[in-house]
């Protein structure tokens, strides 16, 4: 089966249990979703494990998914993968999100040129401490609200805001350093 097949058609075949279609779907989205999983887990074997579990969930719930267009389908898969990654972090890594009392303003202007390459930015996000990285990924990239983050990570909204603010500052500084290296 060609990978270039229409996504909707592949989804229909997956729903009927067609193994080749399932394989095509995995091949179509694996690399992209792997990067999302890796962004949370920072471990290749863990990311692949979560990726495979995520695809199993995708196939199990595909019958209930209402297809509109490819971006919405991709977003649905991505949400499943992120939830799987968060579940993995909770179970395996036993991350403790320390309650941050200090609330820092998020309205400080951040001065960067924005010329940093996407690959470098991805690696800088990876270099953040686990707690900061998780909250930053969830809020800034996945679009979770602080309330949702608080519920998923079992922290207060204030802590979520504080962790996000610190993550931003740290990332901002890393970006400035990298851009300075570009200029030099």
């Amino acid at each position, binding site marked *: 089966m060609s990978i270039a097949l229409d996504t909707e058609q592949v989804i229909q075949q997956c729903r009927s249990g067609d193994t080749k279609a399932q394989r095509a779907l995995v091949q179509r989205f694996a*690399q992209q979703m792997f990067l999302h999983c890796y962004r949370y887990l920072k471990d290749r074997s863990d990311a*692949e494990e979560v990726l495979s*579990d995520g695809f199993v969930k995708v196939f199990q719930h595909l019958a209930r998914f209402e297809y509109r267009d490819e971006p919405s389908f991709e977003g649905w898969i991505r949400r499943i993968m992120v939830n799987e990654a968060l579940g993995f972090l909770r179970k395996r890594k036993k991350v403790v999100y320390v309650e941050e009392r200090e609330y820092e303003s998020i309205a400080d202007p*951040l001065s960067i040129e924005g010329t940093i390459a996407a690959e470098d930015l991805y690696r800088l996000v990876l270099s953040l401490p686990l707690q900061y990285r998780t909250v930053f990924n969830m809020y*800034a990239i996945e679009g979770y609200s602080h309330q949702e983050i608080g519920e998923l990570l079992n922290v207060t909204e204030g802590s979520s805001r504080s962790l996000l603010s610190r993550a*931003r500052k740290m990332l901002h500084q890393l970006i400035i350093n990298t851009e300075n290296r570009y200029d030099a």
Partner: protein
Amino acid sequence: MMPEEFDAMVKNKISQMSYLPGLECHEEEVWQKVNVKLGKGGTSGFVPPFLFGLVFILGVCLWNYWSLISPKKTVLLSAPSEKKVEQVAIIAQHEETTTVDTAKALSPFVQKKTDTTVVIKQLRREDGKEDQTSAASVTEHGVPLERRPEDRPSAYLPILPPKEQKSANNTFREGYLGLGGNYAFAGRRWGHTLSRNATLAYGLAVKQPYPTFQLPSLAPSVEGRYYLLSKDKRFHAFVYAQLNTSLNAVYTPPLNLQVGAEARYRLSRKGATSAWFFFVRMPAYQRTIIPGRLY
């Protein structure tokens, strides 16, 4: 740049990415894992057969316990000599490994065994209480079963048939054919008995994926077993931990750790030249380990 703009900039750049040098996803391996997990119906689909298997094994354990422990007293009382022969047979098996000419070495003992048996029978007939004769009472009558160890091998070695003599050492080998969720397989294992309940086996299998027509793969494996039900019984079961790999994987061969249980039913008679088993293997936990990719 405001924080919201900062977030948007990061989001846009990262969301556009679908590839990062050095972070390539091994799609084939991921697909194989997905396929295996789907074959078992995923995590939720795995639980019912596992529970069924667990209940089945527990049932077999209970049945085995019930059928062996309860009548055991009767067996011991009515035929003490036969029971002892079974126990001593194990000793004789160990000794057999050092014997050069087994047949010649055994020949003088055959007569002794016959004599001993006759003595026991005579004594019991004289007593006229066959059902109540115990090992202790036999010893009291002067038959040197327990108190004179130097006589034991000579007294009981001859009961061993030649076939059991062959299996008297601590190694075994087995061939097997099977069907899994996604593979048909055939293999051969060699094993060592570590203790009464534990064995270590290593082997090589050929796996043919189906229904796809991929090339068959060679899968060497090492496994440790712990017997829940003695392997001497017709029905036996063990838990195992197996480490296997596939030699012709597309990428670096991943190691696969599998822990589970296997139940076997011996189809052939005990002591037959070769034993035939029907077996069901139930993996309870699987984990793929990819060496050298721990970053």
